[in-house]
């Protein structure tokens, strides 16, 4: 009897312990740990910024190390793409006709020099982007063609008036490159920000050592209470994929926000085991082949078309996806995205078909017709970023040799490479487009005439194309808009073959588990480190 009671007591105690364990387990798995303040985040950036001014640049090499020094008017929520959330704008209203956007600006926001931000700073920054003064480059000017004016009627109000309604204007305004600068500085020297840093962002600039690192420290007077969580960050410039993987494996860095190739991912995960996690996503990035439309023989449409016909994109996709983060075959809109070109339509475009032999025969015929001799030599200008530019260059050289051409691969630092592309000092370039949002206005603007968009390095003028761009931008009916987008795509990639996509990218981010508050999305431009924290 005594023994039975003891057993009952033990059973009850065991049940109680089990219940407590279960309860504690439930608590720990359902409630995420609260963000921890402190620590410095080291991350890898695989290229150095060509300048410090995001308004003129298009590369992650500017965004990753420098974006945390700045705020935007509105921004994409890095944890919830594609939701647009307030940043320096506290709130906004849109008029019924969709032509007037009125933003209420936060009060008490300070620049890193201690001065207060007003609507004048926002107007000056947006004016520099949308209506840049003579001699000042703006990479996204063409995207804001619909903007009529920006005004600052009061210190905490900004009003943007449009010429025609744009369904995704707010998203366009949330471009992660639209950093807000100080009006006084811009008035004195609109190019000051190309070589200097001064914003309102969560981190102050500490130092930049070329070839080594960029460092930021927490801005104690940051307007958002409790943010940032980190004490600081250090962006390490490491270009070699092998060195990047090694830095991640041995904890020199916790993450690289752009993307790794499958082999690097596997290496890191195998080494770190439970300490690593991997996030993957489609990617709003692709590589473009850009013939110089003003240079002979690439001014001849037949030569440009022959170049695209020679490329085996489907075979390349299978092969290159094993060694790089390139993969999906797609047209002007992201494969897998809401506006993606269906494969049946895509394969009708020159160079995107499944019959490679026929395409290459056609390419040879076109080259003969255009008077391009067998073994014709030309240069393929490329960036010295190993992933994915150099493998893409090797691939292209091989593809064009198969139709009797003799391309020479020229690899340059990002700065001189961009300078040459901008100046038209190239035969064929390997360019890229990386965007922050799935929208034809954003993806197609790259292809409007070079005189309307300085980012179009192919150097052509096509008013019909410009008209199609404007037409789709104003079209409110989705189906009709899609039809115009397809028409635009056919003209750029196939009919005129001005420039064309090689492959789209697939985003793979392995990182240390202790990095929290970070979620991978289809754009690698959205991270501002405001919500990021370290669990240990």
């Amino acid at each position, binding site marked *: 009897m005594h023994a039975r009671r003891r057993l009952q007591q033990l059973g009850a105690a065991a049940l109680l312990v089990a219940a407590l364990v279960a309860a504690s387990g439930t608590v720990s798995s359902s409630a995420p740990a609260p963000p921890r303040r402190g620590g410095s985040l080291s991350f890898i950036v695989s290229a150095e910024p060509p300048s410090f001014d995001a308004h003129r640049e298009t590369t992650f090499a500017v965004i990753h190390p420098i974006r945390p020094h700045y705020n935007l008017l509105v921004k994409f929520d890095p944890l919830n793409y594609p939701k647009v959330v307030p940043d320096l704008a506290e709130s906004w209203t849109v008029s019924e006709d969709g032509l007037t956007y009125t933003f209420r600006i936060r009060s008490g926001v300070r620049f890193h020099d201690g001065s207060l931000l007003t609507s004048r700073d926002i107007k000056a920054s947006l004016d520099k982007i949308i209506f840049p003064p003579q001699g000042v480059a703006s990479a996204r000017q063409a995207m804001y063609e619909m903007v009529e004016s920006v005004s600052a009627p009061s210190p905490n109000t900004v009003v943007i008036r449009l010429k025609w309604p744009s369904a995704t204007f707010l998203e366009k305004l949330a471009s992660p490159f639209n950093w807000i600068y100080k009006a006084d500085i811009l008035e004195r020297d609109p190019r000051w920000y190309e070589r200097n840093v001064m914003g309102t962002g969560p981190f102050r600039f500490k130092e930049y050592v070329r070839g080594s690192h960029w460092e930021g420290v927490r801005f104690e007077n940051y307007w958002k209470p409790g943010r940032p969580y980190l004490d600081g960050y250090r962006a390490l410039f490491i270009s070699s*994929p092998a060195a990047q993987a090694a830095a991640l494996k041995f904890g020199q860095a916790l993450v690289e926000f752009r993307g790794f190739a499958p082999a690097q991912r596997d290496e890191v995960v195998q080494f770190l085991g439970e300490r690593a996690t991997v996030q993957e996503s489609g990617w709003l990035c692709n590589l473009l082949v850009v013939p110089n439309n003003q240079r002979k023989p690439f001014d001849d449409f037949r030569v440009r078309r022959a170049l695209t016909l020679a490329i085996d994109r489907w075979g390349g996709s299978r092969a290159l996806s094993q060694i790089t983060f390139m993969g999906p075959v797609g047209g002007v809109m992201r494969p897998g995205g809401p506006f993606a070109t269906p494969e049946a339509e895509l394969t009708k475009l020159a160079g995107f078909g499944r019959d490679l032999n026929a395409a290459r025969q056609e390419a040879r015929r076109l080259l003969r017709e255009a008077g391009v001799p067998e073994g014709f030599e030309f240069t393929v200008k490329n960036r010295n970023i190993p992933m994915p530019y150099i493998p893409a260059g090797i691939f292209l050289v*091989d593809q064009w040799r198969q139709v009797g051409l003799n391309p020479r691969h020229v*690899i340059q630092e990002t700065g001189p490479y961009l300078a040459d592309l901008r100046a038209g000092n190239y035969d064929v370039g390997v360019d890229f487009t990386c965007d922050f949002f799935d929208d034809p206005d954003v993806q197609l603007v790259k292809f409007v005439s070079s005189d309307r968009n300085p980012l179009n390095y192919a150097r052509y003028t096509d008013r019909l194309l410009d008209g199609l761009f404007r037409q789709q931008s104003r079209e409110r009916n989705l189906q009709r808009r899609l039809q115009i987008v397809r028409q635009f795509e056919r003209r750029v990639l196939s009919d005129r073959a001005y420039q064309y996509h090689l492959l789209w990218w697939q985003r793979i981010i392995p990182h240390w588990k202790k990095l929290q508050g970070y979620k991978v999305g289809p754009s690698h431009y959205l991270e501002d480190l405001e919500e990021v924290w370290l669990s240990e």
Partner: protein
Amino acid sequence: MTGPPDALPARVWLAAARPRTGGRLMRFARRYPLAVAGGGFLVLLVLAAVLAPWIAPYDPLANDYLSMFSPPSSRHWLGTDSFGRDILSRLIFGARTALLVGLSASVAGATVGALVGVASAYFGGAVDLVIQRITDILVSFPLIVLAMAMVAILGSGTANLVVAIALSFAPRAELVVRSSALQVRHTTYVEAARAIGAGPWRIILRHMLPNVLAPYLVMLTAFLGQAILLEASLSFLGLGVAEPTPAWGLMLSGAAVDFVQKAPWMAVFPGLAITLTVLAFNVLGDALRDALDPRLRV
């Protein structure tokens, strides 16, 4: 073998020595078997480079996506790389890059250095002082650093690589040749040439330069190995020739590093090629130095 007597111009001495060349070569071979092996390897290398289009089993630039990362096999003796390119073919064609850059840079660097060194020794005084201080500054930089700086200024590419390596070698050659030329400057035949009214450049080119050929040749062989190593190092660092040009250093970098665990043959064979070639040049250079330097002769 004897060196040129002070009283005889080099031409006369070389002509007198000619009938004994075959015998000297045999003695050299018996005395320095490693150098002969090195020389044999280098001859094979030169033949491979010259005959590359005929002996390479595959096009070194052709991608073959069905053969990516193939291990060594009867089809691909040394395996394939991440683009399915045949490694043996790339090594054979890579020998062209190595020898082209190595030979051009070494000859150019050693020749420029020798000319400047002899001129510096001949003129002496302020000319010598200025040249020596500039040389001191240049040799204070490690070779690779100097070459990297030159490439940074000139840009990458085969021609610029040759110029960069040659310019890095020149001050080192200048120092060595100058010290030999200083001894030659006071020889009686130089004095005699001066006495009969020969101009400075005639004396330098006709009388002094031929008499510093021994250190020049030794240096040249040493530079050849170093130049190939430098070319490989600069290409490895992304400063040399660009992909897809077959070059040994380039073959060792990039994907060879990224995929070293998956396909070690991508790194092993180019590494072996560089090692063996540099070793061959070094043993040959050492033997030549021993054979040509009278002070080292027993």
